[in-house]
């Protein structure tokens, strides 16, 4: 990894952070409708994984999908437009936060159903393999998805058919408001391993660790050695969705404070870059400023954009 690559990772994480801060503000001030599940705190997972991918690789995403979408290369302006339900949005305003997708950059789409896109990831991997390409598919899902049967059906097939798919489990410790240990029995890694899928656990707050683990999984998949499973231990700094403000009954302020103070993925990377003399704090700040300006401009674009024409309601309907 060279300096530029590290700074790109930093910029990508920063982009997600700032994007989500704007989203939070838009929702809480009533400017954005619907439901938004913020990725703040989990940035290193999407960025570490997507930096190990090529533009022509695929990802599938979840209800908490803004970070995945940005990490795969989407731009903030059209994402904001989608979240605001505006015509230039990635899905022409028809999908919104929970269905954001960017086919051009290989983001096959977010999904509002827990584990709802796991089959799609396996299918994309099948198609990539059948086309004799070395493209891979990454399936992002929250640890809540471990409760869904489809995941096990899909892992079984991925192993049987040696599919180039990487299952990335983002364990942010809570299924909505329930600690995962209360809903998830046994050893998580034993589950993929039961299918013969290579599985490893990684620190989801350390983008370098995620990137290295993802790199190994992607390289295997490209060589035709089949699926892998990455368990990324992480934490969402804010609520399950923007409306989840009073969280005291399911987790303590102290716990949140500790993660923010000690386990912030942006801070962890920056500290390391400075300690290793790869970048100075001024350089990091400059990256931050650039990203901030770009994201703010993206938001202005989206705020000024037009809503879809009402006649759009029955386009894309065929039956």
């Amino acid at each position, binding site marked *: 990894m060279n300096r530029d690559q590290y700074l790109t990772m930093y910029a990508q994480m920063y982009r997600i952070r700032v994007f989500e801060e704007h989203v939070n503000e838009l929702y809480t001030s009533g400017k954005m*409708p*619907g*439901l938004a599940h913020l990725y703040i705190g989990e940035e290193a997972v999407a960025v570490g994984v997507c930096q190990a991918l090529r533009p022509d690789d695929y990802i599938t995403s979840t209800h908490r999908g803004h970070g995945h979408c940005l990490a795969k290369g989407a731009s903030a302006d059209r994402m904001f437009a989608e979240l605001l*339900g*505006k*015509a230039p*949005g990635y*899905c022409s*305003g*028809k*999908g*919104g936060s*929970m*269905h954001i997708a960017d086919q051009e950059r290989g983001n096959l789409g977010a*999904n*509002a*159903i*827990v*584990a*709802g896109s796991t089959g799609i990831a396996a299918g994309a991997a099948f198609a990539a393999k059948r086309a004799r390409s070395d493209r891979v598919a990454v399936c992002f899902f929250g640890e*809540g*998805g*471990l*409760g*869904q*049967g489809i995941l096990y059906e899909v892992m079984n097939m991925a192993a049987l058919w040696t599919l180039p798919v990487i299952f990335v489990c983002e364990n942010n410790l809570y*299924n*909505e*408001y*329930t600690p995962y240990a*209360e*809903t*998830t029995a046994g050893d998580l890694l034993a589950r993929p391993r039961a299918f013969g899928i290579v599985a490893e656990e990684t620190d989801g707050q350390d983008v370098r660790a995620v990137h290295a683990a993802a790199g190994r999984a992607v390289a295997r998949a490209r060589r035709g050695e089949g699926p892998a499973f990455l368990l990324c231990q992480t934490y969402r700094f804010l609520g399950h969705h923007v409306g989840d403000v009073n969280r005291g*009954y*399911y987790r303590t302020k102290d716990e949140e404070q500790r993660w923010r103070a000690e386990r912030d993925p942006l801070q962890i990377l920056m500290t390391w870059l400075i300690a290793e003399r790869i970048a100075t704090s001024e350089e990091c700040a400059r990256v931050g400023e650039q990203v901030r300006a770009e994201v703010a401009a993206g938001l202005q674009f989206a705020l000024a954009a037009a*809503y*879809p*024409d*009402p006649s*759009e*309601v*029955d386009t894309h*309907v065929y039956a």
Partner: protein
Amino acid sequence: MAELTYRDALRSALIEEMDHDRRVVLIGEDIGVYQGTFRVTADLLKRYGPGRVIDTPISELGFVGAAIGMAMLGLRPVVEVMTWNFSLLAMDQIVNNAAKLRYFSGGQVNVPMVIRGPNGAGVQLSAQHSQSLEATYAHFPGLYVVAPATPAEAKGLLRTAIRSDDPVIFLENAALYGMKGEVPDSDFALPFGKAAVARSGRDVTVVAYSRMVFAALTAAEQLAAEGIEAEVINMRCLRPLDAATIVESVSRTHRAVVVQEQWKPFGAAAEIAMRIYEDAFDQLDAPVERVTGADVPMPYARTLEVRAVPHEADIVAAVKKTLGKD
């Protein structure tokens, strides 16, 4: 009588039935510690303990299946689906087991189970979170399908549902949870298969259920200002369907409009309209009109969503059409 919200009416039915019958257990995602996404199970974990208020993994297929097994052995599970959209993950268990066990076991077993949660569109939740699934479930023999509109109905029908010996699809509505209304106290229950006349009128019969009852009542007010008196029938229950109440009304008004939030093809309104044609054809002075959601997956953008859900104005227009005043 007490004034309760729809939410509290549901909750009080749960409490009374749980107090009355130890076999009643609650199962669902985030219903215990979190007290339910819409707070219908507020405080119930504390009251009844984890043996009767059971938080589950995000495993709809699994916990609905398990609830069926519990019911076969004599428990009375009340399953909460966070929204009915997620019931689609459990649909095989609902349709292939719950609905059929009494029949294909030759009456050896029955499944006294309720599945409840909010059905229908919210506000800009887009396609996977906005579905109205009443017709989907009402299609299957072996399922009661209930859709209360008022707090009193929420309570009275939920009590009947929990006491039912067979599975009940209990469709609530997120927009109604905060709505207040008078609810009789004491041992109050409402029968399945019995509609209510929500407003009397002589000119046209407007048939609705769940949230659309209120759209119909608002439309009726607007029509009254123009001298058109609409009778509004609140179905309360789709399976069994109280065709008699509709037919009786249509035989006085000679016109009918059926309102539903879901898509038009193969929907509840089609079934209701056909029942009117079968039982009251001679009484009709005009074809039955349907007011429905647009025939598209629910779009996200507000300019589109507003076009995809039915409004009072659509009901007003449909009524006028039956009267030849469009």
